[in-house]
Structure formats: C-alpha cells, structure tokens
C-alpha cells in the first residue's frame, strides 16, 4: 500500500456529497406569444422581457420570443419555484452577432432563489429550439447539497449502522 494512511473517525468515512444535476424544461406555443404581443403590445414585452430579449424579438419574431419565455420557465423549474419572481430577472442572453450559445443571467429574486436552492447560477446552461409553431427550452445546472441534507444523511447512516 503506497502513500500516507490517515486514520479518520467512522463518521468522516461517509462519501463526500457532491453536486447533483438538476434540469428544467418548458414547451411554449408560438401563437400565444404572438397573440400576447398583438393584444398587450409594449406592456407585455416590457413586463416579461428585458431590452436585450426584446431585441431578439425584433430580429427573430414571436418564435424567438417564445423560446426565451420557455427558457425562463425552464430555469425557474430548475430553481424550484417562480413565486414572486419578476420574469425579467431571468434573462436569456444571446450574442448580438454570429449566433452562439445563449447564456442565463439571474438577478433579484431569481438569483436569491437559486442561491437558496444551492444552484450555481453562473453555471446554468440552456438550450433553445423552435419551429414555426412550438418553442422549447431545456435548462441544466448543478445543485450542491445543503448542510441540512448532509446532516440528515449522516444521522441516518449513523443510526443505520449503530
């Protein structure tokens, strides 16, 4: 046996909890987004989308906007709740030129909820797609175990092996 051997108490031999993947997804009909823009106009756009997201609408039309709405919902599902979240605080950014991967930028309550859920907001990845009729998005991120979960796991193991 090579290397140093360190004696450790039994309680510290438990596997170190590692981050676990979390996902969220959403499907969005394009026509309802088109209808919302027609009916509510700037009030809908300004209430739901950031200026950068609205720029993508100008370039890509309602299908592009529907994909961004789906991405917001996918991220909120990943985090665990949308309660009290301003939808603009989940911003889906895309490079201004040349396409490329969209990026997620969380602010406000969305950022707080991600932190409370143990999700690394900077590491959330999203993928968007759409046809003329439907838009969809998938979000994935890593959730670190909470202290409470670690303690509960340790207690259960200690109880089980006593």
């Amino acid at each position: 046996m090579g290397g140093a051997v360190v004696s450790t108490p039994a309680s510290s031999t438990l596997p170190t909890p590692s981050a676990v993947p979390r996902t969220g997804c959403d499907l969005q009909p394009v026509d309802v987004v088109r209808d919302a823009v027609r009916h509510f106009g700037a009030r809908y756009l300004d209430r739901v989308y950031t200026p950068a997201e609205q720029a993508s609408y100008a370039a890509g039309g309602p299908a592009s906007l529907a994909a961004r709405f789906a991405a917001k919902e996918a991220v909120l599902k990943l985090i665990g709740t949308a309660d009290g979240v301003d939808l603009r605080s989940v911003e889906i950014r895309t490079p201004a030129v040349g396409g490329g991967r969209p990026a997620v930028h969380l602010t406000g309550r969305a950022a707080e909820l991600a932190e409370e859920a143990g999700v690394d907001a900077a590491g959330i990845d999203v993928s968007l797609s759409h046809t003329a009729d439907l838009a969809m998005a998938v979000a994935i991120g890593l959730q670190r175990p909470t202290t409470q979960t670690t303690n509960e796991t340790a207690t259960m193991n200690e109880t089980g092996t006593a």
Partner: protein
Amino acid sequence: MTVKDQIRAILGQHAKLSTDISAVGDGDDLYAAGMTSHASVTVMLACEDEWDIEFPQQMLKKSTFASVDAIAAALAELDITDGVGSGVSS
C-alpha cells in the same frame, strides 16, 4: 356584472383552458384546467387593464391566479370588489 363575472370573462379570453370556463367552479384549479404559466401572465395583464391596477411583485405567485376565488381575493386586496374600482359595473 360582478368581479367574478369579469374574471370569468377574462379567463374565457386569455386563460386558454382546455374546458369551457362555464364548467369551471370558482374554487377549481385553473392550472389543472389547462392554464399555462404564460396564460397566467396574460390573465394578469388583462386584469390590470380591466381595473387599471398593477399587481405588486409579491402577489405574482402561481397561487394568486390558481382559481377564480384566488384572483377575486387578490383583487380584493387591491380594493377591487363588487361595485368598487374602475371598470366595475354592478
């Protein structure tokens, strides 16, 4: 027309339910009846237009728009009740 009648009219136009709004009870879960998150946003905007109000951020919860009763309760918190508030006719 009562506030709940107006809510039902808004839901009929914007909630995109899978069933007719007349078949939905005041306490029934609108999400279970087919209302999506996006539809709840348009319902919110339509309510704001109807009564010339703005829902505060803390009221923008899934539960606020979960039923006719829940929406009526949220409007009541904003002082919109039968016979009170702009756009309401009794």
